């Protein structure tokens, strides 16, 4: 009788833990929202929500690509540098019109992704090392192309950065649309299933005859393209190209959003909803601390604590 009861409590606890793992990030967002609504003056205003959402949009776009890379049991450290590269390219090619600049920037990001993916898929270099090289070289390249900050004066870019549709900023619409698209790709397409299978076990995926190399290269090309797009969006929002600081530490924010959102670093599972919530959680956390006049140093410490708690909850094996 007692044994049975004990067994049941253990099972209940397991279930609770699993629920917390899967939905803890939504709980965190809800708690932060409630705390802010209760204690932060002027939090419940359209203007504030707009600001928060616009700030989170570029991070989310990068995090979507990162989620795919992590789902394949990889990681992409070069995304911050790709954003810098893309902002430099935008400035250089804006003279030919915004669409040309956008395409060139995307091609640049895809080229970086192709290089990353080839090192990983063909040569078998660990993702963290393969993308480290372009993380170092990418920002240098961006600075070679555009040595210092440059104002971007282009009406189309300006409207992309600050315009809205029915009150929702374009940046937010684009990020939301991409999140839906990536979620659809992961859940409903062959590519998505192959990606998860490879992340689960690469040898098994090879034995099953999946096109491992093609899928891995596609993942990193997509990741590069999304980072480049995020660079364009951030450039449009700031109305300036700043290759020195744009995208700094972005790889960390993106990885944090993905991991806090419940995607395990060991691959095989991708949670896009969680990634969105993870990005929002970090943004809200920062905003909350700043709004209550707590020093920025607290934000970093709080972010570190959130990361460790999230990973503790996910309880991964000691793998990179």
């Amino acid at each position: 009788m007692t044994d049975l009861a004990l067994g049941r409590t253990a099972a209940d606890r397991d279930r609770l833990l699993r629920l917390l793992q899967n939905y803890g990030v939504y709980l965190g967002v809800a708690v932060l929202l409630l705390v802010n609504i209760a204690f932060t003056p002027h939090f419940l205003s359209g203007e504030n929500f707009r600001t928060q959402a616009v700030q989170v949009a570029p991070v989310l776009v990068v995090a979507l690509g990162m989620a795919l890379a992590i789902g394949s049991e990889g990681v992409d450290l070069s995304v911050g540098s790709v954003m810098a590269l893309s902002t430099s390219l935008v400035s250089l090619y804006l003279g030919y019109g915004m669409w040309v600049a956008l395409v060139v920037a995307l091609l640049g990001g895809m080229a970086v992704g192709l290089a990353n993916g080839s090192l990983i898929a063909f040569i078998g270099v660990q993702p963290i090392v393969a993308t480290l090289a372009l993380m170092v070289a990418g920002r240098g390249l961006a600075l070679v192309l555009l040595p210092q900050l440059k104002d971007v004066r282009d009406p189309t870019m300006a409207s992309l950065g600050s315009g809205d549709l029915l009150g929702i900023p374009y940046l937010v619409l684009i990020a939301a649309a991409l999140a839906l698209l990536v979620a659809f790709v992961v859940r409903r397409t062959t590519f998505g299933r192959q990606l998860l299978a490879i992340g689960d076990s690469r040898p098994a995926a090879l034995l099953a005859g999946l096109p491992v190399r093609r899928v891995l290269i596609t993942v990193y090309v997509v990741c590069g393209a999304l980072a480049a797009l995020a660079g364009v969006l951030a450039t449009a929002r700031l109305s300036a190209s700043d290759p020195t600081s744009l995208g700094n530490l972005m790889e960390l924010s993106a990885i944090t959003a993905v991991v806090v959102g419940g995607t395990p670093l060991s691959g095989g599972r991708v949670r896009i909803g969680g990634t969105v919530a993870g990005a929002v959680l970090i943004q809200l956390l920062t905003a909350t601390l700043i709004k209550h006049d707590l020093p920025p140093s607290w934000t970093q410490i709080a972010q570190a604590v959130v990361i460790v708690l999230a990973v503790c909850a996910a309880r991964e094996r000691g793998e990179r």
Partner: protein
Amino acid sequence: MTIDTKSPADPTDPTAQEEQAAGPSRSERLSALAQQHGALVTLIVAVAAASVGFDTFMTADNMENMAVSSAFLAVVALGMTFVIVTGGIDLSVGSLFALGGVLAAWGSRYGTAVALLLPLAVCGLIGLVNGMLIARARLAPFIVTLAAMLAARGLLLSVTDEGSRTYLVDKDSFFATLGQGKVLGIGAPVWITVALFVAGAVVLRRTRFGQYVYAVGGNEDAAALMGAPVARTKIAVYTVSGLCAGLAGALNAAWLVSGVTILGSGMELEAISAVVIGGTLLTGGFGFISGSLVGVLLLKVIQNVINQIGSLDSAYQQVVSGAFLAVVVVAQTWLGRRRRVL
């Protein structure tokens, strides 16, 4: 020498059995040599080319400058080598370097002992926590040290009033001579670094702890079965890495006679690059302390040469270092595969 310990050959592979009977094959030995000494050969070629190309390269001033500025990165890379040989990674060293410098500069008003012990205690403690989370809670090193990187930077900011206050070191104190003094015409940080590298090499090569480090990196489960204290070894290497980063920061503060808050960002990448260029495998189980020193020197020579070409922007440094890292990593993966180290 780890180079001699062949990884267990696949018994189903007939060529592997043959090779095992006859010892390492010629091509295996060649790739092992290339892996161990490739960086050194490249360094010698680079130095020779630079001294032919630039009159200003082989001057005493330039050499001294390069040696001292390499010293700090080298100490960080020393700790990182231990971590990477266990198959881990430490992303927090850049932040710990900056934190160590600021704490040392703040503590120097209470004497040299405080200036050295305070950064060692704080950075060592953060390294210890990293190690505990990685070894006992079994969290991924990448994420744990990432969190430590943020937390240490936050701690640094709160110590310095959000980065607005710079602590100065008294120029006449003994602590300042640790950074600025010279022995036999060579800067004190260089001597300290050389001593640390000799000690590090002895520990990794000649002690039981060193064997455990290789064993854990080679195959964790096998190491555990052999009776190696896997968790304790991992905790120790992250603590060593934290101590090294803190000490490097303190020495750097003594050299600059102030604790500069903005230092150290991107240093983790430089240190990892140096270790990897020096022939240590990121997959763990294989590496050299001396290689890391060569890796640091090679990075610094490249930087120096690019600085000497006045027309080239310093941005090219990053491009060249990155491209160089990519080449090295590809070569290593290829060599490693030939030797079946992976």
